[in-house]
């Protein structure tokens, strides 16, 4: 089989995590190397915390014509490990393709927990980002993991786009990226892994044109209660009732309206809907709410 020189990359992140920026920087680095490249987001309403996708195509020799979303990637990046429980990371992955995950787990553990037998590249991007940048923004760290796992662009060529984008913060981001290049662990492609050509998440079981209600009306309105927006969060609030003075501020400030009174008069968030925005923790005058990492 002659291998195409085209590399197709699919980024899975959450709104606000920088998946789109990552894709853009990677494309700029590739273009800077004289290659042809493309970066674009999955066009949709922007919602902080909601699962989002971004895409890259890189070809060293030929212009890229396809503008469709990447449905058969060579590389999949998972910026938030919690996404693994709500989407199929390996959907459409080409044979020999790589899944790069931000996780503290070992290769064996990821294989066991998520049944991924494809080639793996794992990096604890949260720790690196926190220690190097002081904030939990992992996009530049994930680029480092990708450079290590694929070599599709070089660590050198990413520097200029970083400088243009981040200015004085570029240096720290380069440091985070370089640390990721060093620390990323690779688990090779297992023979049992087969390329899957499954549909994209969200396109299964949808209505045919014959089944659509008059005027595309929704006869079961208010069905947003069924949407588990709790899937969007990377951090969750923990309520310390010993500190709580029942002032109700968290209840009033919660933009999701998911905080409710317990029978003892304290307050708690419904984690099915809580998006982990942290407003309750910021507003709490008694520091009774702490945001903790969702990642298990």
């Amino acid at each position, binding site marked *: 089989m002659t291998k195409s020189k085209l590399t197709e990359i699919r980024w899975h992140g959450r709104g606000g995590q920088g998946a789109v920026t990552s894709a853009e920087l990677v494309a700029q680095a590739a273009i800077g190397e004289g290659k042809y490249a493309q970066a674009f987001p999955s066009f*949709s309403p922007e919602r902080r915390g909601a699962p989002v996708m971004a895409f890259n195509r890189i070809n060293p020799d030929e212009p890229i014509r396809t503008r469709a979303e990447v449905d058969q990637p060579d590389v999949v990046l998972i910026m938030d490990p919690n996404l693994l429980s709500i989407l199929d990371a390996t959907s459409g992955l080409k044979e020999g393709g790589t899944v790069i995950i931000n996780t503290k787990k070992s290769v064996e553990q990821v294989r066991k927990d998520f049944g991924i037998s494809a080639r793996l590249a794992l990096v604890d991007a949260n720790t690196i980002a926190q220690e190097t940048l002081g904030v939990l923004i992992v996009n530049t760290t994930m680029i480092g993991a990708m450079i290590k796992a694929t070599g599709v662009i070089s660590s050198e060529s990413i520097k200029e786009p970083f400088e243009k984008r981040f200015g004085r913060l570029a240096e720290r981001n380069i440091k985070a990226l370089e640390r990721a290049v060093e620390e990323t662990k690779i688990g090779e492609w297992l023979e049992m892994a087969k390329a899957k050509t499954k549909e994209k998440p*969200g*396109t299964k079981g*949808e*209505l*045919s*044109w*014959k089944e*659509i*209600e*008059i*005027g*595309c*009306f*929704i*006869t079961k*309105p*208010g069905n947003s209660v069924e949407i588990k927006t709790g899937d969007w969060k990377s951090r969750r609030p923990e309520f310390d009732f010993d500190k709580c003075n029942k002032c109700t501020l968290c209840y009033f400030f919660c933009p999701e309206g998911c905080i409710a009174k317990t029978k003892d008069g304290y307050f708690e968030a419904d984690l099915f809907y809580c998006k982990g925005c942290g407003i309750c923790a910021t507003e709490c005058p008694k520091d009774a709410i702490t945001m903790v990492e969702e990642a298990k």
Partner: protein
Amino acid sequence: MTKREGLEVSIAVADAAMLSDVDVVSAYPITPQTHIVEHLAELVANGELKAAYIPVESEHSAMSACLGASAIGARTFTATASQGLELMHEVLYVASAMRFPIVMAVANRALSAPISIWGDHSDVMATRDVGWIQIFVENGQEAVDNVICAFRMGEDKRVLLPVMIHLDGFVLTHVIEPIELPDKKDVDRFLPPFKYPLPLDPEKPVTMGAFGQPFIYTEVKWAQEINLEKSKDVILEVWQEFGKAFGRQYSPIEQYQTDGAKVLLLTMGSYSETAMVAVDKMRNDGKEVGLLKLRLWRPFPYEELRESIKSAEILIVLDRAISFGGPGGPVCSEVKAALYGGEKQPKVVGFVGGLGGRDITMSGFEEMINRGIEIARTGSKREFEIYGVRE
């Protein structure tokens, strides 16, 4: 017993809406539609018509108010023209996509600039693709009859679509002519009360006009297209029923003097009547000329068109609008497209004329037909010609 009365067509159109028991009228006055909505306001104010008349600040709002009214299941009527139709343009798409059977009389008028209050079909053609059923009438009686039919067509459960009735500004709206207004009880029998299947109702809530993501939008649009295509069967059925009940029969393409006609002229709206006179004269002179009157503009009557041109060698199409920089008038290019690839194809010659209220007289039609025959034989340097322009 109904009797023929001398009525201004606008007044008769408003009366037809009253006979149809409209519940809500929302409109903004614009020449030459004004008399229609003024008369409706008068009827409501006098208590003759038990309906809500919603005065608004623009046509955009008029159509928006109609959406709301129709959404609760009210029988809704409005009228507009020209710039007014264009101002409500984006809302027209919502009405058809949300399947609200609003009926609207359009007093066809030219578009600015320069300002012209007079008739042509530029306003209609700009709303060609909005998903409404669109019917052209050529006299006051047809306007009355088709307003009544429009409610029954649009409200049919198999259809649920808004309907535009196109009547030429001034040439129809402001003319007094004999019109037979049907008896109220006959209209009641013909037009059952409107019952929208999924109205806005606090007891049984529905969400209307929600977000359509890429995974569903194509299906929604295809369902809409198939629905509009299939509405033709119901339109034919309603015209049949109307014919039985009232003795006046309508069809998507009406043929006049077409037997053995080698040359056909195709027109729409009020100019069809003048063209009939011209065809009569040419027939008397021994010329094998006939007339096709395109009444149903949307859904486009493909089969009927193909059927009606079978014996013709030349088909001359008159458009009362220009598709600037395009292949000719919108009607002519659609007719050409409908005939393309058919077994028997006449030579199609396109004219644009009657713009901004410019009359085409009987002899004018004769001249146009003769020029059309000449072009069909010798060709023209242009894709289409304009009739009556000063060099």
